[in-house]
Each structure stands twice: as structure tokens, then as C-alpha cells.
């Protein structure tokens, strides 16, 4: 095991309440951390109440999606995710090169340089892109941008909702990580960069320490060599090993942790979400690692 890796235990609990019993309900859940790059998932469990056997698939963006169908009438759906994630220190910060526009036009990554449902490319963000980035095609301009946004806008929980638009942030002057990330994506895409939305968690700094209530969002920018580099437009600058990646997409709409449809006349309340991220000790991490290895071994033998 990489001794420079940090290990985190994540509990992510969601409770959905309906005004009356519904049946059946169909749910798509994107809550499994990604196994790409410097991050891997050592253990993962998704337990629901009422109970269900989730089936999984991998979506267009490479995120694991669990399908949870509940057949019996229920007025509450609880989903508990317990997972242990190992995150290695990046081997030095990458500073990807910009794209030749003609090359990008024929590349699949072009998708991330275009407008998306939650990141429309309108005149207001075009003006900001000219003002903040102008003709600077370097990645440094984007690092600057990630530090500029938290200076220009106030981080204020409750200033916006999960459905708020970029215009709401520009008009109100305050928002949360989701709004900052959407604004970053719009400005970067106007400047011709493929850039995507990342949802995840921010782990605590010290050993044994834990943070609660933190679902986080940031962005990744793709360079001409095809590598993605993470930037955090809420805290400013590069992401580190404390940024645990859950799902990526064009914008929040692609990574929403829960999407559900049910039969019935009920209305659903806003989900109650609690997140707790704990930095595990070396010893606890090794135990988890062994557990994961044992699990794999059993899987192979079956």
C-alpha cells in the first residue's frame, strides 16, 4: 500500500419522506466513489430501508449507478452508504496545455466545452469570460479563475437552492460550491476549455478527525493531452487528496446523487442528508485494506 495515501471512512445517509405511501418507486443512486486516478474504493455498502437488492451499471460519464426499486408501499425511503476510500497524494500538480480548436472539434471531449442544461453559455457569462480570462489560453488563467470566484462571490449556505441557476448567483452575489462550480464551467467553456463538474466529499485534515454535513463540488479541466486536472472554485486553487470524487458530469444534473420516480399521488419532501467523513488511522486503514483483499479473494473463488 502506498504510504502516502490517506484513507477516509464516509457515511452518507439520505432519507426521503413522502406525504403518503407510494408503490412502487424507482430510484437511481450515484453514491459510489469513483475508482479512477489517485483514488480507489476499499469497501462500499448501500443499504436501503425498505430493503432492496440494488443493481448497478456504469453511466456515460463512468459513474457507478445503483438502481433501487421498492415494490411494497412505503412513505419513507432511507439509503445508507458506508464506504472506505483511499486517496493518494497527487504526484505533482499537472498544468495541462490548451487545445487547438480544430482538434477539439473532432474530439469526444468537445462535449464538455459546450453548453449543458445547467451551464448555458449566454451573454452574461461570455462577458465575464472576456473580462476574467480574455485571450489568455494558459491553464494558469484557470487556476487564477478558481481563486477569483470565491473572492468575487460570498459563500453563503441557503443563499441558493439545488435548482438555482448561474444567473441567480450573478444576481444575488452569494451561493455555494454548486453555484461556484457552474459559474467556473461556464467561464472556462466560453474560453474553449473542456471542463466538467465533480461531486464528492471534502475530508478532514488531521488523523481521526471528522467533518460532517459536507457534500462538496468542484471542477476538472481537460488538457489537450486528455488528462483532467481538478480545481476547487470554492476554496481556490488545485484539489488535493482530501477531495474525494463521487461522480463527474457536464453539470450537477448529470451527477445528482438521487433521482427517483414513484407511482402515487404523494409529494416528496426535500431529502434529509447527513454526511460524515472520518480520516482513518494507518492501522484502521490497513484493516480495511485487508478486508477488501479478502473480499476480492472470496469473489474470485466463487
Amino acid at each position, binding site marked *: 500500500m502506498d504510504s502516502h495515501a490517506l484513507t477516509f471512512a464516509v457515511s452518507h445517509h439520505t432519507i426521503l419522506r413522502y406525504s403518503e405511501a407510494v408503490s412502487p418507486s424507482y430510484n437511481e443512486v450515484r453514491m459510489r466513489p469513483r475508482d479512477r486516478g489517485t483514488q480507489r474504493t476499499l469497501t462500499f455498502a448501500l443499504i436501503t430501508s425498505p430493503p432492496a437488492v440494488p443493481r448497478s451499471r456504469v*453511466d*456515460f460519464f463512468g459513474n457507478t449507478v445503483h438502481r433501487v*426499486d421498492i415494490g411494497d408501499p412505503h412513505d419513507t425511503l432511507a439509503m445508507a452508504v458506508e464506504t472506505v476510500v483511499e486517496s493518494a497524494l497527487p504526484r505533482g500538480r499537472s498544468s495541462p496545455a490548451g487545445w487547438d480548436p480544430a482538434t477539439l472539434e473532432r474530439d469526444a471531449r468537445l462535449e464538455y466545452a459546450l453548453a449543458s442544461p445547467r451551464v448555458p453559455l449566454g451573454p452574461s457569462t461570455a462577458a465575464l469570460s472576456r473580462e476574467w480570462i480574455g485571450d489568455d489560453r494558459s491553464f494558469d488563467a484557470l487556476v487564477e479563475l478558481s481563486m477569483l470566484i470565491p473572492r468575487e462571490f460570498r459563500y453563503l449556505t441557503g443563499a441558493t437552492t439545488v435548482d438555482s441557476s448561474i444567473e441567480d448567483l450573478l444576481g444575488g452575489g452569494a451561493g455555494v460550491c454548486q453555484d461556484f462550480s457552474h459559474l467556473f464551467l461556464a467561464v472556462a467553456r466560453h474560453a474553449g476549455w473542456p471542463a466538467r463538474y465533480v461531486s464528492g466529499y471534502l475530508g478532514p485534515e488531521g488523523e481521526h478527525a471528522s467533518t460532517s454535513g459536507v457534500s462538496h463540488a468542484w471542477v476538472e479541466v481537460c488538457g489537450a493531452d486528455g488528462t483532467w486536472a481538478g480545481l476547487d472554485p470554492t476554496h481556490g486553487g488545485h484539489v488535493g487528496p482530501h477531495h474525494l470524487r463521487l461522480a463527474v458530469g457536464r453539470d450537477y444534473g448529470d451527477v445528482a446523487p438521487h*433521482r427517483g420516480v414513484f407511482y402515487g399521488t404523494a409529494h416528496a419532501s426535500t431529502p434529509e442528508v447527513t454526511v460524515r467523513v472520518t480520516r482513518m488511522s494507518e492501522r484502521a486503514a490497513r484493516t480495511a485494506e485487508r478486508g477488501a483483499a479478502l473480499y476480492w479473494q472470496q469473489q474470485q473463488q466463487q
Partner: protein
Amino acid sequence: MIATPGPACPPLPVGADECVTASGAPRPAYARTLAAALGDAAMLTDMRDRAIAWFAGRGITFGVPALEGAPIIPFDPIPRVLAATEWRAIDRALAQRVMALDAFVADCYGAQRALRDGVVPARLVYSSTGYLRDLVGVRPPRATHCHVAGIDVVRVDGTFLVLEDNVRVPSGIAYALVAREATLELARDWITAAGVRSIDGYASRLRRTLERIAPRPWEARIAVLTPGPYNAAFFEHRMLADAIGGVLVSGDEIVVHEDEVYCRCASGLERVDVIYSRVNAEWLDPLLFRPESLLGPPGLVEAWRRGNVAIANAPGSGVADDKAIYPYVPAMVRYYLGEEPLIDNVPTYDISDDRQRRHVVAHLDRMVIKPVDSSGGYGVTFGRLMSAAERAATAAELEAQPRGWLAQEEVALSRALCLSPNGGLEARAVDLRPFVLLDEQPWVVPGGLTRVARDTETLVVNSSQGGGSKDTWILTR
């Protein structure tokens, strides 16, 4: 100039270039089949009146049948006649075109070769509302996507051109089938004497096409999925369901349980193997696409992805139906099939391309401007008819929203003889929508739906714009 073809035939309007040559003489295909009938104005008027009663009696409407007084499609009793040689060319050309469209859809959800090779701009595909990225990597049964296509063909200066490709949920075949039924009922001697190819085989061909993609070919329970009785084409959905021995269902009558699809029937839940969907794919599954949609059951797309149910046309085919992508169809034919296109597009401009957009703005008076994701002729405007202020507004709109529009040169549609309201003959613009079924090989229905403009002035033939229909006769020799 007016020519008199024979003693029995009245003077023919010269502008009716479908039926008469520039000199006014009837084209051979028409001379043979129509001369006698055209001389008998009383017979034609009588046939029209009986046809109106015939359609009304069967509840054949275009519009919302659930509402009172939905209009029947105006039916013109004079058929459109195409010679066997003319048809052979169209048949081969449309078969080729649909093969290319199908290959393109497969490519969009596969390796995206054409995008990497710059044949079709990736930008247009990735920004298309018909491109359902969540379906990339899914290979539908028999790797076929566009099982049913309706290609709109117009004749300009004697040459057939494609005006539009419809591969989402093309409608209109039922109107072609009932137009033929009406002709057989009201003028059997006439059509028998002319020697016209039958279109009866459509329903059994459609059934075979759908059976072939069933997950278990030995049992193929087919459901026709309709948006419901408020849909303009509901009559067609009901008629096709009957004709292919399928069950007609709306979204709330099918459910998905553990990735299998069932329909609620009188006898309880019955498994469904194939869905012939008349619902746009973006509305098929609220779990994946539009959460507010009730037109399809949640979980349907996952059932399809796992191969437990077949859906025609395959979800995602709409990417080939995007009007902004249409200009590139001839290039698709060359790229995927390695053949020269046997039928060309109406001259068309991609507004997203700066050079082409400038050309369109500079020649706006010659252009027809269409919204890319609308159908039924809604939102179509003619530059020729715009005021200076409207032209400036259009130019600004094209500049601001290039992805939203398509420009085509205004072309003079060929005109066919029609019975005028006062019982005389007049020339009205027509197009033709032949239907193509993609089974192992493409099959083009001999004929299809001929749509005629509302009056001699109108150039739009859409049923939603008051257009009518006529029977289409493909001669056997």
C-alpha cells in the same frame, strides 16, 4: 397555354407539372390512367363527397379526436400517379438513404467514427436534443435503430430531392392506407384498370420487422405505445395496432418490474416483448430523461438496455432526425456506404457554420427558415414574405441562436392536379412521404403519403397546416 389531350379530357392547368409537361401535354403515366376520369367532373365531385362521408363515418381525423369536431384530412379524389421507372429510382435512393441514416445512428452510439473523421460536426451531435448520451454503448437487437422511417421527397424541376428525414416517430402511413381503401371502395374499376401496385403488405411487413427484433423470436408480444387519445395521430396508432395484431397501450398501461416490461390487460399483467413506440424517446422514461413525463413507464430504458424488450425505433434515433444534421446526410451516404447518393438534399445551409450563415443572411429572400426541433410545419418562415424589420430580426436570431435553425433554399414544389372547391381542376403543390421499413434489407412501401397544399397559393403541405392528401399510384408498368 392550354392543351387538350383528347376528346374526353378537359383543358389542364399548365402549372401542374406533376401531370403535364411544360407544353401542357399530359405526361404518359397520366394520359393512360386519368384522361377518362378527368373528363368526368361529376364523377370526381361525387367521389369527393362520398369520400368525405366515408372518412367521417370511420372517424379518420387528423387532430385531437378526443375533442369534438376534429377535422378530417381533406382528401383529393384525383390520385398522384408515378411511372414504374420513376418509382424504381426513388425506391433505390430511399433504401440507400435509410441505410446511411441507420449507420449514422449506430455510429453516434458506438465509436463515433464520423465525428472523429469530421464527416458530421461533433458539435451538432453533442448539442442535439435527439442525442441521448446515456445510451452510448448500447447495441440494440440486430444492431438496427431506424426500423421505420418516413422520408419527405419533393420534385423540383423534374428532379426528386429529399426535404426532410423523419426517423423519430414518422406518422402518415395510416392516411396513405385509408386513402387507398377509399379509392378501392369508391372507384374500384378505375384503379383496377390503371394497374397500380398494392400497398396492402405494409402491416405484415411492419409486423415481421418488429418480430425480428424480439428478444425471444418465438414469442413476440407487440405493444404500440401511444401518447394517448389527445395526440393528433392517435387514429393511426389505433389502426396500426389492429393491423399488426398488437395491443395499443399508453404509458400508464405498461409497467416495468425487475427489468421486464408488462402491460396491464384484462387478464392481468402480460409480458411485452416489442414496443412500437410512437412516443418521442426523450419522453419514454422519466427515470432517465424528463422526470415529469407520464408518457412512458420508469425503468423502460434499462429494460431495453438489458435486452429484455425491443423498442422501435431504437431510443436515440432522433439524432438522425435533427434538422441541423440533415445537411450532412449525403456525406453520410458516401462515408458509410461508399456510394454516391442516389438522391440529393434540397439546397440547405448549416447555420452553425459562419460562412454558410453569412450566405443565408445575405440571400434571405430566397430562403426558408425552419426551427431544428419542431415538426408539423410549425415555425417555418419564408424570407420572401418577410418585411425589412422581420428580416433584420431573423438575421439577428440566426446570429444569436445558430444551433436552433436550418435554412433551405425556397424551391418550387411540383404541382399536381386537384379538384377545386367549385368542381374544376387546379394545380397545387405536393410532396411525398414514402415509408421505409428497415428489416434485414430496407423495404420502401410502393407509394406512401402524398400531401397537397391547402390551396393554389400555399407552399406548405403539412397536415397541421391544413394540407390534404391524395392516393399515390405507382404503376406496375
